[in-house]
């Protein structure tokens, strides 16, 4: 595995130390296994499913495809950083619960981050724009109907 490295990442506004890490660790691995942030989910590890979505310098990316050691100096926001506190829900998370957009829940954090990113940049998306915005997030339970309803509900709440 070669030499181990130490570095710092800025996650949800805090500087976090990463020690004795293997060079090739993905940001997803470091978030979950080293920094105690298991909200980002690990499924496909090839950018197909979107369940590990995070914001990096304000851009939506799959954290499984980010080399953690290369993310030094970037602002990283995970699903844990989207609500005010550990016991709080963001408006989008609340909408997902209220509209039945959560079944097994595995894909939910990724969807929440993608929808958060969408509504930050486009507060009033059409259904087609919503569909395109979540096209990189897979859900195998809901059939997407309740997820689209949740996005619409969050949109309406923000507009009110």
């Amino acid at each position: 595995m070669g030499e181990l490295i130490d570095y710092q990442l800025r996650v949800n506004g805090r500087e976090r130390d990463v020690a004795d890490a293997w060079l090739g660790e993905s940001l997803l691995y470091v978030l979950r296994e080293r920094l105690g942030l298991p909200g980002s989910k690990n499924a496909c590890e090839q950018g197909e499913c979107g369940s590990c979505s995070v914001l990096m310098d304000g851009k939506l990316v799959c954290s499984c495809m980010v080399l953690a050691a290369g993310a030094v100096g970037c602002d990283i926001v995970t699903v844990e950083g989207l609500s005010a506190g550990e016991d709080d829900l963001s408006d989008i998370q609340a909408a997902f619960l209220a509209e039945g957009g959560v079944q097994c829940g595995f894909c939910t954090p990724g969807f929440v981050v993608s929808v958060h990113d969408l509504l930050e940049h486009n507060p009033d998306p059409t259904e087609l724009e919503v569909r395109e915005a979540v096209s990189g997030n897979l859900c195998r339970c809901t059939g997407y109907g309740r997820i689209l309803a949740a996005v619409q509900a969050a949109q309406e709440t923000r507009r009110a």
Partner: protein
Amino acid sequence: MLVFLPVSLEEAFDAFEQCPDAQLLAGGTDFMVEVNFALRQPPAVVCLRKVEELKGWRLDGADVVLGAGITYTELMAPQLGDLLPGLAQASRTVGSPQIRNAGTLGGNLGTASPAGDSLPVLAALDAKIVVASKQGRRILELDDLIVGPKRTTLGPGEVIVEVRVPAALGSQEFLKVGTRNAMVIAVANVALVVDWAGRSVRCALGSVGPVVIRARDAEELISSRIDWTGRTLPDDGDLAEFTALVRSAARPIDDHRSTADYRRHAVGVCAYRALGRVFANHNGETLERTSWAN
């Protein structure tokens, strides 16, 4: 030191001097898959993310100069998308928003996948690719850079720096066949450019050979049959001949994504439709589908 985060090309070159075995890392959308699946264990990595010279784009006379670090999302943005509509269309078919925010043009070139979606567009635009190392710069045509599946002529310590293409050259179309609309690697893709001023059609085929293929015979035939003054397409017989020449230019294989037969068929249909769309858009009409292109 095993991970280099250079902020300039000079620093990137210095990193390579220290560590000649280092792997170049652009957006990571191909590289990290191999690392995650333990197919690759790089001794060192040079991350290009922060290299200033690779960012953004600029106009230089009649050309657009694209930094190799430009992402698919940036290529789709309105101003640049208007200058390079074919590249914007191709970018929109790549992966998902997450992938398009990370993946870069330089990375697509460096990975040199036969299915790379930007590559047929660059081929049809006769793009010039600038690569650089401590020893200096070289300017390459696409087929001098990419010489086989995942094989480039990049030397040790050489970095793809920028891509130069003509701005708003004629009309451009990109079509891609895959199993669904999002998150799909091309089974076949086609870029077609109609240069109205130069009275020529250029057509490049992807995912149907070891590298991107220009369908030169098809280009020559259709360019000679188009009524350039009236800006109308020739008759169905000529279009069928064009499609047949496109199909015969392809050198596809059977693999886990498709069959050679289907790929050959698909590039013919895509090239035919692309040509039809360009003329229809240009003349504000829609093209009738003919029976041979079903």
